[in-house]
């Protein structure tokens, strides 16, 4: 069975180590915050200028001056810091953020990612995505393996305008966990109940299946 959005987020959260600074994109990546293991602490970076982002506010905590990068009302955890946008992106571009997790339309075997623009459709902008993929030490892409029509999103070469080049090293989908290296996707884990055959079928780019592929633990 393909994983649900929550299950993908659960698997993402297993990547985090105690003491990591993490930036989570909108969508499945944001859900990962709900599944951080209780025995570790991570600090969430929100690129509008908040390190130590907390939960959404209760009614009596709403403050128009406290928002996250998705423009949603938010709170700060104890020990948080707040700073300007240039400092925020210095953290990102300077490689100080340990993990960035973001969604994508397409990823290819060279580690290129397309996530912000579909020609012919209205372009809203890249926000901070290009800075994040150019700057973070480890970038995890989360997405469904194929689109609604069954077309693979894991390609030999991206077809859409890129967000960044040679920057993606790890992909977690509803079917599998893969590393991107040496011009190929390396399968490391398959989702419970998902066959290697199905993953092969839905991966358009070059896929290497080593002998030691394990079943994903959630």
């Amino acid at each position, binding site marked *: 069975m393909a994983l649900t959005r929550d299950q993908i987020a659960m698997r993402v959260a297993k990547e985090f180590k105690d003491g990591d600074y993490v930036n989570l994109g909108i969508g499945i990546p944001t859900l990962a915050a709900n599944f951080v293991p209780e025995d570790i602490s991570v600090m969430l970076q*929100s*690129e*509008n*200028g*908040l390190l130590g982002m907390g*939960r*959404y*506010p*209760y*009614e009596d905590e*709403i*403050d*128009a*001056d*406290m*928002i*996250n990068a*998705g*423009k*949603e*009302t*938010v709170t*700060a955890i104890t020990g948080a810091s*707040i*700073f*300007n*946008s*240039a400092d*925020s*992106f210095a953290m*990102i*571009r300077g490689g100080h953020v340990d993990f960035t997790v973001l969604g994508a339309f397409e990823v290819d075997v060279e580690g*290129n990612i397309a996530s912000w*623009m579909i020609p012919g459709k*209205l*372009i*809203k*902008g*890249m*926000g*901070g*995505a*290009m*800075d994040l993929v*150019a*700057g973070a030490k480890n970038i995890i892409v989360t997405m469904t393996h194929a689109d609604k029509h069954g077309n693979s999103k894991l390609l030999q070469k991206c077809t859409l*305008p*890129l*967000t*960044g*080049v*040679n920057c993606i090293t790890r992909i977690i989908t509803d079917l599998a966990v893969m590393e991107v290296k040496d011009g190929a996707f390396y399968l490391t884990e398959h989702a419970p109940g998902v066959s290697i055959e199905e993953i092969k079928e839905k991966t358009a780019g070059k896929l290497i299946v080593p002998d030691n592929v394990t079943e994903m633990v959630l």
Partner: protein
Amino acid sequence: MSGFNKVVDNYWEAMDGLQDNMTVIAGGFGLCGIPEGLITQIKEMGTSGLTVVSNNCGVDGFGLGILLEDRQIKKMVSSYVGENALFEQQLLNGELEVELTPQGTLAEKMRAGGAGIPAFFTATGYGTPVGEGKEVREFDGRPYIMEESITGDFAIVKAWKADKYGNCIYRHTAQNFNPMAATAGKITVVEVEEIVEPGELEASQIHTPGIYVDRVIKGQFEKRIERQVLAKN
């Protein structure tokens, strides 16, 4: 010390000198930390052909979005421009030009502009549509693109408190692009919630030193929230 008194009494004085076709740098992220009254004043003045540099362009009927109503903006330099139907319409009609700029690059363009640095190299945008036509240099084997900095004829900034000398502090995430914008205007106007006497703000806690600030005005703020999301019980 009256030469350092930056306080002005009304919005006309605050935005005096703004003319058609000028470049205005505006602080704010979404609707958070935007100089609401200064934007309303620009609408009132009817200045047109403006290039506005700001992370976003407000929403329909609020923030920078109100400057679209009378087609006062010729060009926007932003990282994200969703949530605004009038914006989309004017963009598709060709009435409005937009230069999409990665968020960190936009912040750095303002910071560098204010610091007298004409351009810088960044990995952000290399190999993407943003990098097209820009100079590429390799440093330690990695390619970077050259981005030019930005300065404005005016910078409009929202701060929490300022003293009469223009020393400013910001509140929470309403800080965002405001401190960079403040450095990058030929004329920098700061709209604040409270004006205090010099000495009332702790000198070492000042975010924007008064040297960057030309005019300070006390504003009234609606502080509209774009996306109110509550914790689940």
